[in-house]
Structures are given as structure tokens and as C-alpha cells.
């Protein structure tokens, strides 16, 4: 049982209770950082959704690899009637390798994107604190050096943020290219599944085995398609938000330079 240690005074306990509450700043952000923060959060959310959509890609690639091995064994058992299926399964193996390569690239991209997200969130937090500081030192009672120091710091963070948003936009572009790569694999796998089905029709006693391969492959192709559909929407939104954020950052930088 966990008991509360009795402390010597109620005020102390009250303060400790207040300290243990979830910390939510009582002060609100100002408009400039608010807009950037809202859009950045949207961008990061879309990137997370896109990566999440591809979460089962490695499992699907592995299933496809096992299917191609089983299909090759079936083709071997079919002798001459399995020659075309054997060639098709070898081609499937190449597609699986391509998927594995895309998956590896996507893992690297995911790490990079989340590192950029962390930099953006840190930058936004610092920017909002400096924005508050700007308001406090710009009261006519501080000398010019204080305001200059705060403005300089704000501008440095904004520069850093714009550069990071640029990198983020490139990452989203890379993600779109990887998604397109998966799309090509889907289209080619679909053709292979169709060709195996055609070969099955002429395979006599081996028809059932080849048809099972073809149907299973179609099933995997459908799963891949679903992935693509979910990811494409998130990538498209992320891409739009990334571009709009970059413009917003550049505009803010322009404003800062005009005011200097």
C-alpha cells in the first residue's frame, strides 16, 4: 500500500501538489509562432501517418518472399509446365529485394524525419520564448542592446527553422519517391499474379497449386495497395503543409530583415 508521508504544513503540501500537476503554460503564444506551430504540428502528424501506413511493409515483403519460394518449388514439381511460373517467381524475388531496399531506405528516412521533427519542435519552443522576451524588452525602458540581442536570437532560430523545414520538405519528397517505388512494385506484382493465373489454366494437375499462388499474391498486392492509398494521402498533405510552412518561415524572415 502506498501511503502519503505526512509533512509538516499544509502550504508545503499544497505547493507540492501544484508542482506535481501536469505543467501547462498559463501564457499563450503569440500569433506568429501560433500559426507556424499549428502548421508544423499538422506536418509532423501527416509524416507520422505516412510512415505508420508503411508499418507492415517488411512483413508483407517477407510473406511475398516466402510465397515466391513456395511457387518456385511448385514450378519445379510441375517440370516443363512450370517453366514460365519459375521465371515469374524469380522476377517476384527481384521485386521482393526491391521492397526490402525501399523498406531500408524508409527506415533511414523515418529516423531522419523524426530527428528533424524534434529540431522543429525545439526551435518552435525557443522561438515562442524569445517572442515573449521580445515583448518584454520592447517597452522603451530597456536599452537597444537588449532588444538587439533578443531580435538576433529570434532571427537565428527562425533561420534554423526555415533550414530545417527545407530539409523536412526534402524528406517528404523522398518519402513520396519511396511511395512511388512501392507503387511500381504493386503494379508489377499484379501483372505477375495475372500471368501465373494464365499459366495455371494450362498447367493441368498443377492448376490448383499455381492458382493458390496467384490468389495469395493478389491478396498481398491488395494489402500493398491499401498501404499506398493511406500513405499517399498523408504524403500529399505533408507535402502541401511543408511548402506552406517554408513560405511562412521565409515571410517571417523577410519581415525580420525589413524591421532590422
Amino acid at each position, binding site marked *: *500500500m*502506498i*501511503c*502519503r*508521508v505526512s*509533512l*509538516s*504544513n499544509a*502550504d*508545503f*503540501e*499544497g*505547493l*507540492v501538489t*501544484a*508542482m506535481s*500537476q501536469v*505543467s*501547462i*503554460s*498559463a*501564457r499563450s503564444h503569440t500569433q506568429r509562432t501560433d500559426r507556424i506551430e499549428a502548421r508544423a504540428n499538422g506536418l509532423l502528424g501527416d509524416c507520422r501517418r505516412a510512415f505508420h501506413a508503411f508499418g507492415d511493409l517488411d512483413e508483407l515483403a517477407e510473406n511475398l518472399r516466402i510465397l515466391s519460394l513456395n511457387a518456385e518449388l511448385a514450378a519445379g514439381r510441375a517440370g516443363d509446365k512450370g517453366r514460365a511460373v519459375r521465371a515469374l517467381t524469380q522476377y517476384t524475388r527481384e521485386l521482393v529485394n526491391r521492397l526490402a531496399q525501399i523498406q531500408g531506405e524508409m527506415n533511414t528516412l523515418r529516423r531522419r524525419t523524426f530527428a528533424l521533427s524534434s529540431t522543429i519542435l525545439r526551435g518552435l*519552443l*525557443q522561438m515562442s*520564448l*524569445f517572442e*515573449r*522576451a521580445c*515583448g*518584454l*524588452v520592447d*517597452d522603451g*525602458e*530597456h*536599452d537597444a*542592446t*537588449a532588444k538587439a*540581442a*533578443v531580435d*538576433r*536570437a529570434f532571427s*537565428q*532560430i527562425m533561420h534554423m527553422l526555415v533550414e530545417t523545414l527545407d530539409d523536412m520538405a526534402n524528406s517528404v519528397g523522398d518519402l513520396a519517391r519511396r511511395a512511388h517505388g512501392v507503387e511500381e512494385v504493386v503494379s508489377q506484382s499484379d501483372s505477375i499474379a495475372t500471368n501465373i493465373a494464365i499459366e495455371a489454366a494450362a498447367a493441368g494437375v498443377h492448376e490448383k497449386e499455381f492458382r493458390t499462388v496467384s490468389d495469395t499474391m493478389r491478396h498481398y498486392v491488395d494489402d500493398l495497395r491499401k498501404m499506398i492509398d493511406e500513405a499517399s494521402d498523408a504524403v500529399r498533405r505533408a507535402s502541401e503543409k511543408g511548402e506552406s510552412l517554408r513560405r511562412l518561415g521565409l515571410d517571417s524572415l523577410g519581415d525580420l530583415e525589413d524591421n532590422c
Partner: protein
Amino acid sequence: MKCVTLFREDDHCWQAFGQDPDKPDNVVDTNQYVIRSGSAAILLDPGGMEVFPSMLAALTREISVDDIKALFLSHQDPDIGSSLPLWRRVCKPDVKIYLSWLWAGFTAHFDRDAVFTTIPDEGMEVSLSHDVKLRFIPAHYLHSSGNFNVYDPKARILFSGDMGAALVPADKTNGSMFVSDFAGHIQYMDGFHRRWLGSTRARDAWVAQVSKLDIHMLAPQHGLVFKGDDVKRFIDWIAGLDIGSGVASMNR
């Protein structure tokens, strides 16, 4: 944020900053101190990022950020130095950051680009100017395991970090940054010291160490500053306090 001058003699000056009325209620109140001598200043426990805007605004009413030559972090807590990356953005690039060797790698989580001048366990002496020397004296395990106080023998002020800290409710402050009624003040620091401090051996060593110093003011990182006879009262009080109260909640 309030700014009170604790000591001034020629260009040697100690100032305390705290009791920020705009501070959100759920953020614990902290004191930040600046010691100046000529055009050199050191900022002691610059504070958490939440107090940074008002601290910067209050500080720059007194000095230019270009004068801040060093930052001192008594230990690793967020209310001590999570503002570090923000201060480094406004201070000159060669600003020194003093911190216990124990915490350099941990505090880098606040600011991976910060370069620390690490303080050995025994402490060290630094010169703020040709005639103002500061001693970083060990206060390990009180409450942090790598913890330092700052003693200025010329001003006779000891920055004591969490030793002497008090959590004074906002409605109980009387506008002063000094303890005016020691007996009445105990209620605000009693629970803090009982729970936050864990080592009686460390407490005894600290009491023996600071009893040898000539201290006119004892300036903690939370709550009110002790001066004159209240310094000895505090040392005597802490020497007899039963600390480590959290232990009672274990193995029940």
C-alpha cells in the same frame, strides 16, 4: 520579475531576481542571482526555460548580456538550467558554463552544443575580476549528488542552492526577498528540507564547512534570503533537522 540588490561596493555587486508575478502557478518559484565586478558578470542558476523571458527582461534592465562572462549551474535540475540553450543564444559565444563534472553529459540533454567547464568534486576558485574571487564549494547530496554553492568572501554572501530553500505561497509573501521572522519562516522550508535532502552525513559535512565561513547573507535558489543572525539560525536549524523523509514511504 523582482530585482533586489544584496550587496554593492564600488563596481562589485550581487543582485537577486525572483518572485515573478507573471509566473504560471504550477511552475515553482526560483531565485536567480548575478554577481558583477566591473564589466564581468556571472549568472548563478539562470533558471528554467519558463522563466527565461522575464529573467532576461529583468536582467537587461541592469546589465548588458554582453557582460555575462559565465553561467553557473549548481546542479542538473530543469529549474536550474533548462534555459541554458536560450542564454547561449543571447550571450557571447565564449561564455563559460560551470557545472559539476557529474552532470555535464546529462545537462547536454538540455543543450547538446554547450561546452561545459566542469567543476571537480572538491570545488574550485574562479576570478570574476582582479579583486573578486569566487569559490565554488561542494554541497554534494544536498539535494543533488553533484552540487555546488558559491561563496564570495569579499561580499560575505553564500549562494546556497537548495540549502535554505523555501516554498513560500504567493499569498504569504510580504514583498521582501529577505527572511524577517525566522521562526515563522520555518514552516515554508521544513517540508522541503525533510523531503528533498537525503544524506545526514552530507548535511553534517556541509554544516561543518559553512560554519567556518564568514557569511553575512545566505542566498538560496528558492524562497527568501537569510541575513545577519538568521544565517546562523538557519545553520543551527538544519543541523538538527531529521531529513530523508521519503524513505518512510518505502517497504511498507
